[in-house]
């Protein structure tokens, strides 16, 4: 495919879609599939056939539409209506163009002017619900691969990097390192061989942002990686994706094949001299592989154990070559930045944190699902306006961000803007975007114990502080929750927090104390109450 052909396909596909009487998008993300979206889709196909509308009405899949708690979700393009809890029996009414039939579905229609939709700002998830992730032409129709075409023909690699730097984009994997600077570092290396790695080993419990992006818009990630490859001078990319993400793996495999066949990846990208291939590497169930040096070890077929940095991967990474590692959401932000310019992106968000952030809302919240909000939106907006607040008349107690490396944010900080700096200031982190809401029924010591158990199970075992420290901290927390803790235990717990933070080899161990530290900071009275009620140390 050449650049001209790309534009032709875009126009043709757009025209084709416009000629249709309706296009019905059926959510095919794991959340909806798990509550029967496949049956709804089959039923829709059957109804189209039955009505003989194959030429006029098209049924296709779509990425995550966000409101997972109301799945299966179906969107009808003709009247731009979204329906929730759709059952296969309702397919006929959806397919029919008859306004009266539509009335039958009124109860299932979701108000898309509600705050859940109105307050979101979609960049990463912009294509979810408007294209089928399994069809390349769909992606091209919404402007896909235009950014890549623009870059490889009109921009030099340093200009691409300049655009990214100007956008102010920071890594969405958790630490928030400026993406442009990282790219520049890799670009500067003189090595002939470099790699681009997409970290899709999303492992925080309660986080499913990256999975939704991979399932809903795989080509966008590929395009972002190709842009990175062009900018830093790499010809090979790897996507390291969790083995548990079967659907995402399948979609990526399809997308890579489609892109290779269309010369959007491969030896002559868009007919130019730029080469870029992407291969998948399937993770095998080790959270620590989200840490970049462990991820590298894993791609090399080894035990996923981290090593000391420096050297950092941009200098010496995969097979000791310069390696650029970004996560899924970071790559997904690249095509729109190149298409619309860094300045446009920088106009969204706060001074230090630009753009939007995707969050997976879960726990004691009405609208469980996937949302995207501009950086700087307050927790209150996200939880109460977009998220719909606490169900069953419950009272908000804390929000947990950043997974096992993050912290619990109490009520008094609900108005803090959600950006990298502000969250760090109150002892949590942005993390990859899991946001778990807890109500009064949550026992915060037990929450800390839960995360410590997670870290203990996921510790690779290489360094002593993390390997044994997590076990001891879990032991202390478990005893406390059972009412067997002592003041000496609490003292030891705090000492171990410091030890792990300062001496662990990698990020997993260094941040493992965070849930303990933040609950100690804001909910110390719960620890004290447990000690007071405790029977004492012996027996």
């Amino acid at each position, binding site marked *: 495919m050449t650049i001209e052909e790309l534009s032709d396909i875009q126009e043709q596909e757009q025209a084709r879609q416009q000629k249709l009487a309706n296009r019905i998008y059926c959510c095919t993300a*794991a*959340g909806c*599939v*798990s*509550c029967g979206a496949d049956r709804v889709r089959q039923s829709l196909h059957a109804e189209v056939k039955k009505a003989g509308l194959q030429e006029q009405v098209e049924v296709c899949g779509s990425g995550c539409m966000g409101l*997972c*708690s109301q*799945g299966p979700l179906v969107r009808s393009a003709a009247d731009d209506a979204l329906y929730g809890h759709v059952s296969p029996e309702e397919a006929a009414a959806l397919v029919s163009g008859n306004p009266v039939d539509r009335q039958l579905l009124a109860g299932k229609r979701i108000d898309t002017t509600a705050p859940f939709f109105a307050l979101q700002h979609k960049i990463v998830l912009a294509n979810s619900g408007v294209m089928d992730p399994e069809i390349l032409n769909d992606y091209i129709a919404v402007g896909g691969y235009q950014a890549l075409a623009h870059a490889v023909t009109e921009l030099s690699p340093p200009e691409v990097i300049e655009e990214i730097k100007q956008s102010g984009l920071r890594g969405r994997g958790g630490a928030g390192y400026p993406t442009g600077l990282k790219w520049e570092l890799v670009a500067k290396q003189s090595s002939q061989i470099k790699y681009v790695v997409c970290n899709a080993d999303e*492992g*925080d*419990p*309660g*986080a*499913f942002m990256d*999975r*939704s992006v991979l399932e809903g818009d795989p080509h966008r990630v590929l395009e972002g990686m190709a842009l990175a490859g062009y900018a830093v001078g790499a010809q090979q990319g790897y996507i390291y994706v969790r*083995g*548990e*993400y079967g659907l995402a793996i399948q979609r990526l495999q399809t997308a890579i094949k489609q892109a290779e066949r269309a010369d959007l990846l491969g030896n002559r990208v868009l007919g130019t001299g730029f080469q870029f291939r992407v291969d998948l*590497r*399937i*993770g*095998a*169930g*080790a*959270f620590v592989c989200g840490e970049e040096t462990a991820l590298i070890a*894993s*791609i*090399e*077929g*080894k*035990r*996923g*154990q981290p090593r000391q940095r420096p050297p950092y991967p941009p200098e010496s990474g995969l097979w000791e070559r310069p390696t650029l590692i970004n996560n899924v959401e970071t790559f997904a932000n690249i095509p729109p930045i190149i298409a619309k310019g860094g300045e446009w992106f920088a106009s969204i968000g706060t001074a230090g944190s630009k753009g939007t952030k995707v969050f*997976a809302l*879960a*726990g*004691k919240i009405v609208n*469980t*699902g996937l949302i995207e909000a501009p950086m700087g939106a307050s927790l209150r907006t996200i939880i109460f306006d977009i998220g719909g607040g606490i169900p069953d008349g419950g009272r908000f107690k804390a929000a*947990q961000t950043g*997974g096992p490396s993050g912290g619990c944010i109490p009520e008094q900080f609900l108005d803090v803007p959600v950006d990298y700096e502000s969250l760090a200031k109150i002892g949590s982190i942005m993390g990859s975007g*899991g946001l*778990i809401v*807890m109500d009064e029924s*949550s026992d915060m010591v037990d929450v800390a114990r*839960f995360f410590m158990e*997670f870290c203990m199970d996921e510790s*690779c075992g290489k360094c002593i502080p993390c390997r044994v420290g997590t076990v001891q901290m879990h032991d202390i927390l478990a005893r406390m929750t059972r009412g067997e803790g002592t003041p000496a235990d609490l003292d030891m717990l705090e000492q171990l927090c410091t030890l792990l933070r300062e001496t662990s080899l990698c990020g997993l161990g260094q941040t493992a104390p965070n849930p303990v530290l933040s609950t100690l900071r804001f909910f110390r009275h719960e620890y004290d109450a447990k000690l007071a009620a405790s029977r004492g140390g012996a027996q």
Partner: protein
Amino acid sequence: MATTTPSKPSKAADTARDNRAKLLERAMSRHSYSGDALIEVLHTAQELYGFLTPDLLKSIARKLRLPPSRVLGVATFYHFFSLEPKGEHSYIVCLGTACYVKGALGLLETLERRCAKAGRTSPDGKVSVNSARCIGACGLAPAVIRDGEIVGRLTPRQVTEDLDRIGVK
């Protein structure tokens, strides 16, 4: 070390077995028998055979020219790989935070009490119990993957009834 070998093959299974060996060989050759591809090869082997036997690991080590201890080291580092045969039925309890907040531990406890500890198979080979970090069905919390299918909003009581139904003692 799991010393269990798959049950005695029938004739039909024999040909299937040959095919499996061929498919595994093809996966290794696709990666030019490179040691770097160990994890991909183990994935394929487990897909084909269900679990990784010592013989299987030994032959992979030989083909990829790797020390056997490294192959076992990798196979046991990642939780995805199983060195024991799987049970007739499988339950994977999601322990993601959303499911945890909504009581996933109660489900796991029930399964562990009736069948086997997470990561193991009940002694009668009936049920394998596992836990997962997050299966991404947070909207359906607490969720379990039962024989490959996601079942949401489960209670310990439903799990008990389910186990009774499939004849777990």
